[in-house]
């Protein structure tokens, strides 16, 4: 990984004083994750270029790691040694520390004077593309030049890589350029190689207090720099903005509402949950099982229904259950409440005695995630063996997909959907299942009904 800094201020070789690195030398600095070399490629009076070459130790990086599920192969073969990332930010702070803080023993005045500067990065992963790269630097008066490399010229069909060779130039103090780089590199890369805690907020404030409050991409910068940790983000924004009280969650909420207006997505989800909850109520249920509860969206609604004394959420993914546990704040519930609800791991293609004995089973936006070949097993698990009085099944109506502007024709709504049914297909399946297992079924549209393509979601209420 290479960073070069060039100035055309005269005498350009004063760059050596600003960086406090002698232009005639090649110096090496040991870092915890490898080495940094500093040398100059051009040292003329009219132009001077200093280079910071970062040499990461790829094997040392992995060896240090402990805990978690253990590294996957990705931990061994990856781009980290070759791209600008938080490693480079750390190296800048360690190797060019005084320059970053605007100090220079020999050229104190020059250190706080804007001079023409250009920084080049050999490879930077830009999450958000060239557009974001420009939106981050251009508001501060930089000129940006970016060249994107292809993934592999042998296989042009693979398309472009996420990496850019980047040049930013402008008339700034060196310390400003360095701190802009220090913050923006990990933001564009969208990763940090170390644990992000409270001191990360201090770093951000120190490097950004001058330019960050008014920056149009402020929230994105704060969010990515702090690895999207809400508490840290709120803390940083509060301190950055002083009295201008900004709550990132509120902001988020606002955005979500905007999105909602465009896609009506959230409201559809709410309508769906509402429809399911009313179907549960209509069944005068005391006990309900949510098959495929995911992260607990429906369970949260069900808990509010005091008539329900026995609520069970089932999911096949242990991770989803952990999230559901957290989202429902199960550990904080009073004992009496806690006893009403239980989360268990289970699969809809295995018969399971723990699914039996419920008034209602909800299967909300689940069946489309099952391979068609597994549907017969699912049908028997629920309708033959669990056999609740009422079964509520929802699934997308794919006819409605043409009304989603963002959805390319012929694509499913979710990458993991194995099928999406038309109204007729769902009706056909529901009637067949009902007939076979002795249930009656009623189909209910959910969401705005379109005269041509129906509603976005369809619900089947099976009763026996």
């Amino acid at each position, binding site marked *: *990984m*290479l960073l070069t800094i060039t100035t055309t201020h005269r005498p350009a070789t004063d760059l050596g004083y600003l960086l406090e690195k002698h*232009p*005639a*030398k*090649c110096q090496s600095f040991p870092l915890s994750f490898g080495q940094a070399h500093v*040398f*100059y*490629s*051009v*040292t*003329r009076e009219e132009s001077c*270029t200093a*280079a910071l*070459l970062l040499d990461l130790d*790829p*094997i040392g990086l992995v060896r240090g790691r402990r805990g978690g*599920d*253990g*590294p996957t*192969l*990705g931990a*061994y*073969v990856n*781009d980290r040694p*070759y*791209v600008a990332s938080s490693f480079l930010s750390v190296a800048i702070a360690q190797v060019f520390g005084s320059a970053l803080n605007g100090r220079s023993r020999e050229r104190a005045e020059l250190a706080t004077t804007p001079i023409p500067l250009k920084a*080049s990065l*050999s*490879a930077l992963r830009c999450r958000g593309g060239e557009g974001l790269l420009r939106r981050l630097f251009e508001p501060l008066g930089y000129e940006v030049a970016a060249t994107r*490399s*292809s*993934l*592999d010229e*042998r*296989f042009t069909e*693979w398309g472009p*890589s*996420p*990496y850019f*060779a980047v040049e930013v130039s402008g008339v700034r103090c060196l310390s400003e350029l360095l701190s802009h780089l220090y913050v923006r590199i990990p933001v564009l890369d969208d990763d940090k190689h170390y644990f992000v805690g409270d001191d990360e907020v201090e770093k951000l404030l120190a490097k950004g207090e001058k330019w960050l409050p008014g920056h149009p991409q402020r929230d994105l910068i704060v969010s990515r720099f702090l690895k999207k940790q809400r508490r840290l983000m709120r803390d940083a924004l509060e301190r950055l903005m002083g009295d201008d009280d900004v709550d990132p969650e509120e902001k988020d909420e606002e955005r979500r509402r905007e999105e909602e207006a465009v896609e009506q997505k959230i409201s559809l989800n709410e309508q769906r949950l509402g429809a399911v909850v009313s179907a549960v109520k209509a069944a005068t249920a005391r006990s309900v099982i949510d098959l495929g509860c995911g992260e607990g969206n429906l369970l949260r609604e069900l808990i509010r229904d005091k008539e329900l004394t026995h609520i069970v959420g089932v999911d*096949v993914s*242990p991770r989803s259950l952990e999230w559901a546990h957290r989202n429902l704040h199960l550990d904080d519930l009073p004992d009496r409440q806690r006893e009403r609800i239980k989360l268990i*791991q*289970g*699969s*809809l*293609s*295995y*018969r*399971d*005695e*723990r699914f039996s004995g419920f008034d209602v089973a909800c299967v909300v936006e689940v069946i489309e995630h099952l*391979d068609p*070949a597994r549907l*017969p*097993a699912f049908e028997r*698990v629920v309708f033959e*063996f669990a056999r609740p009085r009422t079964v509520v099944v929802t699934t997308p109506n794919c006819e409605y997909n043409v009304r989603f502007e963002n959805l390319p024709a012929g694509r499913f709504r979710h990458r993991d959907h194995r099928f999406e049914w038309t109204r007729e297909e769902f009706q056909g399946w529901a009637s067949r299942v009902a007939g076979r297992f*002795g249930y009656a079924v009623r189909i209910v549209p959910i969401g705005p009904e379109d005269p041509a393509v129906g509603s976005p979601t369809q619900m089947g209420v099976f009763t026996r």
Partner: protein
Amino acid sequence: MNIEIPELSLVVLIGTSGSGKSTFARKHFKPTEVLSSDYCRGIVSDDETDQSATADAFDVLGYIAAKRLAAGRLTVVDATNVQPEARKPFVLLAREHHCLPVAIVLDISPKIALARNQDRADRRFGEHVVHGQHRDLRRSLKSLRREGFSHVFVLDGPEQVEATTVARTPLWNNKTHETGPFDIIGDVHGCCDELCALLEKLGYQVSGLPEAPRVQPPVGRRAVFLGDLVDRGPGIVGVLKLVMSMVESGAALCVPGNHEQKLLRKLNGKDVRLTHGLAQTLAQLEPEPPEFKTKVAQFIDSLVSHYVLDDGKLVVAHAGLPAKLQGRGSGKVREFCLFGETTGETDEFGLPVRYNWAAEYRGRAMVVYGHTPVPEAEWQNRTICIDTGCVFGGSLTALRYPERELVQVKAKQTYYESARPFLTEGARAPVIEERVRDDLLDAKDVLGKRIVSTRLHGNVTVREENANAALEVMSRFAAPPNWLVYLPPTMSPSETVTEGPLLEHPREAFTYYQRQGVAEVICEEKHMGSRAVVVLCRDTETARRRFHSADDRIGVVVTRTGRPFFSDSKLEAAFLQRLAGAVTAAGLWERFATDWICLDAELMPWSVKAQELLREQYAATGTAARASLSAAISVLEQAAHGDRGASVATEALSGILGTLRAREVRVGRYIEAYRRYCWPVHELTGLRLAPFHLLATERRVHTEQTHRWHMETLAELCRCDPELLVATPFRIVNLTDVASQEAGIAWWTELTGAGGEGIVVKPMQWVVKSKRGLLQPAIKCRGHEYLRIIYGAEYDAPEHIERLRARGLSTKRGLALREFALGLEGLHRFVEGEPLYRVHECVFGVLALESEPVDPRL
């Protein structure tokens, strides 16, 4: 006095304090069989005399007793038990576990009891207590039978207690010592001609028909009748005479059916409705002398509800029997044997819907039964119904045990019309379809900590968290379980080379096998693709029959984690059709007398399955590395040679430059390495399959063949479609011959020098055991260049490779052995016709073990 108690019973001792119950129990029962209330009081309160702990103590006692009875173990309750309400829970408990409650009363006079208590420090309670107990005991004596005790023994006074002996008698249904072989015959219903024909087909010599039939079985064999001999058919008397004589002479065993039961009630003068063919029986019995009817009644009365045979491996009962009722004796057991169990609902023909016990059956014993006519006898979870509706125009079926072979005689005509449509043309009745095609798995088959016993490697333990992880993968991503009969084991690399530029080398693998006493190994080229397991049937019919396929596919191609290889089912179908063509052309169906085949293979190119990985990880890393290094090199060159005045730093710069140039070369080679795995594929064009194990065909797992046989047999297959199929190049190495070893090494050097992935070294035999157990079934030796995409582009830089040598193989090798054993176990179980859950348990286990954390670079 000699007491005879059933071998499985709950013995309740009844006696006052000091009557000698504990001494009696010690004398006649194993210490572990006796549950004493005093002892339980001690367990919960540290004080055996603490009366306030009594309720808790009895909870504990009842809990332990329930566990023992569920496991089929005789249990003795040592407590005073002098009041009916104290005994009641034990009678209920025994009933719940379908075993017999036995009461043994120790009637000792209070005087003696008190004298005994005098000597014991912990029994200093008032005399009135013992007197009270004795009064209760006396009052109980008459009512014990009424309370539900099946056996009551009263021992009067210390002498009789002292002189008593206890003997245990086996239940009538316990014939575990009878090992067969057996010919088990389904519901006859008066089809005498068909029965005679079937017996003859089975090799029994029948003579003396019709009046005094005599049957001579083939040597050592014995017939077993599953009941429902009578009603509906034309030859009821003949059948009765035949079967009764066979049972009498020992040529046959017989269990009763519900029709016999009803006939017996009629013969005993009960008021019974003459439906379901009973009228025929009565009409045909009419001309017979009354003595015959009496004999029939006695015969039926003597029949035992079910038999447990052959060391518990076989159970026969008319309507089948769930595991927890086998070998037990109670009214409920008899009821189930005769009638099965119904759900309380009725179907569209007005007949009761049967509880599908066989779908849930997970018992060890094979259960053979009849009762419900089915169009075809089919296995379901180690159970099989062999009532193929002879009297309704179907056939009379026998199951030969232990051969598991079905022998049938077609009905000469339809003698009786079934209420439920039976054998309708085309469509089967839905209820029947459901029952016989049942392959629904139960969460209990896979979840929790599991221990799978394998024939190769003993018990393999699957940890609970691994099972949880596997459940998600299996449910969300894997192919349907009915197709997953095998998953391949992980494979360990060779021991690490200790010096030089290499990490892996064939010499290390040769040394491993040589040390374990293997003389000959095979080296197979490691293909540059993805592991694929192919299950292929000759046709859709075979797929339905053998793999219970619900659609029109003829097979599956799955990855090493059981995921479908192709996301496009049409492409998969085309691929399988093409492969089936090659199998047909190679004559493998006939050669192995099979309709299906299971292959272990490599499917190329890797880019087909790993497109995303190649692009997002490998290509991305390559392009970033190249961009970064070339920029750095040009800036360094500029610095070293440019116009920068005094070049104090030249030496340092050229040092860095040299390092970076070397790194650039390695990155270039890394890019070349991953590119070898990518070539364009359009539908089937460009796809190549390299099969290297012919794992199994009908009735056979081909692990008894050498790997050379597999290579050669599969090469024949590959010749039949050289465009799609690639024979795996191989070399055989004699480990006792240095030149042979060197030739093997030279081959590896040549392959990997050209960028090849490497070789896999296997002992010539599939399964090799040394004194210390199973050997690694295969060891891979990967090429120097290939390892760049595993260990990183620059792994072979001297400063890196030394650190990489420190890698531990033992976890990987342990997993490889356990997965190997599980994989083959599943395959064996499949070819042996074991139920799906038994096969799935193994496949699931392999998947679960794959979630064990292990260095992914190995």
